[in-house]
């Protein structure tokens, strides 16, 4: 454990913020989804880093379990999300989220 915990956390934060930028700023729905995946990854890194450095019950592998579950959820969400994107694409011929604003007043 020579690398300080804060380094990992900072990198995770950077990943998270980059992913956030992608979510907020990209037009393409798939691009947004990729940003979400980045954010989830950052979260995972955070979780594992904390497990390794801070968790006193390291032996229970809690951090890793958590990370596995997150990965699972990310997979499910990516599947459904992409299915939605394809459905929308079929209907609208676009994947540009700015074109999909039915809820606009």
């Amino acid at each position, binding site marked *: 454990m020579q690398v300080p915990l804060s*380094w990992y956390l900072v990198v995770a934060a950077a990943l998270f*913020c*980059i992913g956030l930028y992608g979510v907020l*700023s990209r*037009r393409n729905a*798939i691009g947004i989804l990729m940003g979400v995946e980045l954010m989830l990854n950052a979260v995972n890194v955070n979780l594992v880093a904390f497990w390794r450095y801070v968790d006193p019950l390291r032996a229970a592998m809690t951090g890793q*379990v958590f990370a596995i579950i997150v990965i699972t959820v990310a997979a499910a969400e990516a599947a459904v999300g992409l299915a*939605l994107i394809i459905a929308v694409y079929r209907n609208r011929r676009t994947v540009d989220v700015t074109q999909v604003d039915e809820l606009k007043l």
Partner: protein
Amino acid sequence: MTIQHVVFIILSAIALIGALGVVLSRRLFRSAIFLVLSFVGVAGFYILLEAGLLAMIQLLIYVGAIAILIIFAIMLSRQAMVADDKVLNEQWAPGGLVAVLLLAALVYVLVQVNWQVVEGAVPPDSIQRLGQSLVSSNGFVLPFEVASVLLLVALVGAVIIAREK
């Protein structure tokens, strides 16, 4: 500066450059490739954090499934994406600003906190332990099962949603 530091730095460069590539690339396919690169970097992090199985799972699932899925989706919506299309929406500036500010705030906090690091080694049979805690009743069997249900639901849902009518 030990070798861990150097590896860490290299790995974080890979991850971050990959991430940047995802969000900044004009072409979607390249974004997907950069995403894969970022995933690999994160997997490296896991290895460095002595979470070997997790690193493998990361590679398998994220790179092998999710990234592939994304690439499939990109392929399927290819006609819509042309290189000279607009990449960013109208609020990219505030979005960027917010991200930067958030990063600044987070870094500011993270650097200052005195983390209560608990020294200790990872047990050698970590993989067994991981497997056991996933399915043991005083472990995380419930989240495990729920997650599996979730996967089932997502599977069904995705099929239905993406079905040809």
